[in-house]
């Protein structure tokens, strides 16, 4: 029997359903891989028993001849931003260390209902704030990838860096991610896997620890486009508990997957040709254009004129919302409480939040508090919201000329741990290609396109029209088929 950890979602599901192997065998293989991969620090908590329970359910359902769910027998990783009943949920923060929810997030519940099992809670940047996974209170995740001829530890991207590392290292076939400004696409790109963020509102935010409510969106990460489609189909759907959830049926994306792009127009935004982008990234983008042309698409030059303003606007809006969303972590009802001797209520807040939040979280709470303050609100927040409208309008104008947009996912391949930590602006610039689609609430995906000269993965990004996840997945599939990306990190852990 082949190594079950090498299999993807579809292969595991079909193998279990077809009796080639049992779900328990898969869960055991993945549990073992997870247990051996401590050096990656991809998981904050492991839950092997949960994976086994779900596997046993799938196996007995199969022997009883019952209909199996679309993810029956598939063990997955759960980003530790999703509340999981009875399992510690921390958002990789000290302030929520030891917090065990009595409720299950809508998205994770849907996955369990589809038959998936949980291997554990995946590490991330603290409160999903970061692009390198270095802001986690539980230590950084290491990418399984290394530059050719180097032992330097690389960042797995962020904030869904535990997810990307675990999938790239074959600890799990798929995982959940969340994307606020690129937190699915950027880590997927630099670890050589696929990651899709659907249209804002497709996935319920209920039970996901909030970072920036108007931007946060759950999505799927896996090693193939089809596996992402299967995962996302299980995750998406209307939820009356989330007022921003969209009351629309979830299409059968997986079944409809079609890599033939005849009649499709692919937009190439000229503003994304930015100074400071790696030559390898530019080259892979050009290669992607050629592949899509080969798939039958018409390539059109488009303009997204407000692209340059998207990143600054994002770094006002997201911290503004975060400063308010994180106010609930105050030491009063749950989580960390730091109550120095003789402290009053204000002292307790200050001590708790000083001890409970990491530097990056504090930085964003301070920025957010500042931009919402009397006298600054109009200059920053109101202005940023206007920019957001203009960025969204750029895309609306573009859809008159094209059906889907092709762009790089990131301006560079994986960087070394510590490389950008001291320079927040350099770190923030990693989101430059992913943030515009987030501001506009559009579905977007990163798909592996190849390796750079150091042997590190590069990703290409597809951005689609609202609710056209299908268009994004189809174009990504066309690239996947042509890129033939089979590289995987050499095991060192």
């Amino acid at each position: 029997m082949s190594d079950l950890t090498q299999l993807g979602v579809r292969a595991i599901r079909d193998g279990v359903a077809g009796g080639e192997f049992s779900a328990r065998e898969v869960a055991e293989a993945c549990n073992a891989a997870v247990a051996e991969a401590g050096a990656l620090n991809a998981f904050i908590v492991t839950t092997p028993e949960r994976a086994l329970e779900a596997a046993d359910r799938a196996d007995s359902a199969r022997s009883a001849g019952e209909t199996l769910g679309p993810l029956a027998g598939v063990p997955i990783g759960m980003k530790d931003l999703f509340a999981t009943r009875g399992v510690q949920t921390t958002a990789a923060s000290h302030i929520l260390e030891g917090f065990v929810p009595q409720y299950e997030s809508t998205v994770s519940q849907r996955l369990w209902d589809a038959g998936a099992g949980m291997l554990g809670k995946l590490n991330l940047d603290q409160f999903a704030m970061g692009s390198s996974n270095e802001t986690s209170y539980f230590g950084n995740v290491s990418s399984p990838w290394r530059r050719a001829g180097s032992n330097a530890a690389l960042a797995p991207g962020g904030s869904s860096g535990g997810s990307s590392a675990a999938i790239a290292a074959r600890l799990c076939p798929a995982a959940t991610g969340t994307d606020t400004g690129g937190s699915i696409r950027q880590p997927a790109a630099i670890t050589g896997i696929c990651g899709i963020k659907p249209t804002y509102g497709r996935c319920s935010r209920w039970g996901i620890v909030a970072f920036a409510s108007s931007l946060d969106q759950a999505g799927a990460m896996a090693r193939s486009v089809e596996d992402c489609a299967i995962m996302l189909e299980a995750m998406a759907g209307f939820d009356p508990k989330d007022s921003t959830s969209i009351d629309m049926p979830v299409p059968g994306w997986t079944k409809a997957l079609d890599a033939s792009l005849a009649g499709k127009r692919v937009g190439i935004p000229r503003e994304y040709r930015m100074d400071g982008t790696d030559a390898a990234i530019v080259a892979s983008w050009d290669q992607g254009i050629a592949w899509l042309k080969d798939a039958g698409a018409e390539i059109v030059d488009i303009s997204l004129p407000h692209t340059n303003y998207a990143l600054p606007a994002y770094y006002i809006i997201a911290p503004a919302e975060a400063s308010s969303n994180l106010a609930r972590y105050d030491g009063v009802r749950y989580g960390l409480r730091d109550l120095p001797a003789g402290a009053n209520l204000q002292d307790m807040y200050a001590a708790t939040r000083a001890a409970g939040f990491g530097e990056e979280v504090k930085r964003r709470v301070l920025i957010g508090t500042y931009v919402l303050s009397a006298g600054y609100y109009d200059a920053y927040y109101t202005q940023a919201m206007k920019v957001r409208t203009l960025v969204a309008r750029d895309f609306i104008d573009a859809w008159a000329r094209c059906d889907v947009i092709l762009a790089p996912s990131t301006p560079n391949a994986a960087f070394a741990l510590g490389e950008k930590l001291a320079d927040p602006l350099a770190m923030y610039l990693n989101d430059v290609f992913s943030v515009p689609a987030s501001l506009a609430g559009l579905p977007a995906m990163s798909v592996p396109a190849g390796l750079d000269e150091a042997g590190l993965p590069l990703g290409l990004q597809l951005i689609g029209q609202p609710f056209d996840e299908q268009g994004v997945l189809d174009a990504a599939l066309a690239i996947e088929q042509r890129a033939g990306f089979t590289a995987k990190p050499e095991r060192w852990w």
Partner: protein
Amino acid sequence: MMSTYRIHGATGEWEVVIGLEVHAQVTSNAKLFSGAATAFGAEPNAQVSLVDAAMPGMLPVLNRECIRQAVRTGMAIEAQINRWSRFDRKNYFYADLPQGYQISQLYHPLVGEGSLAIEADEKAGIAEDKLIGIERIHVEQDAGKLMHDQHPTMSYVDLNRSGVALMEIVSRPDMASPAEAGAYLRKLRAILRYVGSCDGNMEEGSMRADVNVSVRKAGEPLGTRTETKNVNSVRFVMQAIEHEARRQVEVLEDGGRIVQETRLFDPGSGTTRSMRSKEDAHDYRYFPDPDLLPLELDQAFLDECRASLPELPDAKRRRYESELGLSSYNAAVLTAEVETARWFEALLLASATAQGKPPAELAKQAANWLISELFGALNKAGHALEDSPVTPERGAELLALVGKGTISGSIAKQVLETMLETGDAPAAIVEREGLVQESDTGAIEAAVDEVLAANPEKLAEYRGGKDKLFGFFVGQVMRAMSGKANPQVINEVLKRRLG
């Protein structure tokens, strides 16, 4: 006409300018953004959902019923209803505020400009009817409650109120005396109760007022105002205004200036004291709540809100006068509180059925009985109308007995008292106690003759021109017949005998 209320200071007379922000708890089974219950008096933290406790990842979902109630309230004060409104977060830290922000409506409130009429009340110094402007009504969450008396060194938090829906009803600074403010509050409370959007129980905290007061010399621009927070009775609001206006006049006349500040009212002393000044006021960092979509109301929703509005006090009062022929005083008394009007209308309907007459013909009798008999008797027995042991139907039976001449009005009083004590039906009481009115002319003639024979001097005086003694003879006859004689028949017989 301007109010004549003035503060008499050392340097002359000062006018008072008053605006009220009333927080009214929306009558609804569930909270504004969570499914938790809202009943008063539950065990601490028994009505708290995950949303109310602001657990990680919890999201607000708007309760349409709360919006419906606020819209109906807006319609009742003839206000503009904004078909597009939005919720904002008001950010501040406090232990009774789990989210660290209150969801409110700063920039785009649900209800815009409206107004409310207060009636002339000479005794209170309100010379004529006056329209008080209402700037807006917005909907927001209430906070929880801190309990400082449960532990020597710690405070406890009760989140039962956390997330309960409030309407904040903001008046224009159109009131010029404590009496006007009192009248405004009572009228507003009456309207809320008519509409059914708030129970108006100030002592339970479901209605409370922030009182804005400033003073000025006649003709001068508005002075700096202070805001006295969370005053929870009409009387306290009037006291707070009185005290605050006098305090401001004293400060100004002593050469000081008024600082814009938040003050607290102390019901014990009837005074206000400073809580915090504007300088150290919070910066609430309001911004649109990204968890909620803008609230858009469609025509069908608005139509339903309007169709479900009851007849409101002003309209009802006018109808009582024009259709039922009630005096304006009686109409005002009967419509001032929705419970009274409901009781009266039930009484009238039951009376019409019992006596087979149109309501308009019975309205005066019913109104007079309710106001001068029932209110007094309930008061004496320590009951409110809401918990009256006598139902409108029983009241109608009693009035029917009087109407048919079975008992006299004075016997009816006696029967009512027994009804209040025993809860028995009036007919049964009359029967049991032998109170049926004597209308038999023969028996009354005999009693009249006896009375006249027993009082020869009075008879002579009457005949000598002392007309007033007629009443004396009526009373004597009535007494001789234990109050059961039909007074009309007594009158007729007496007139014949004396005439």
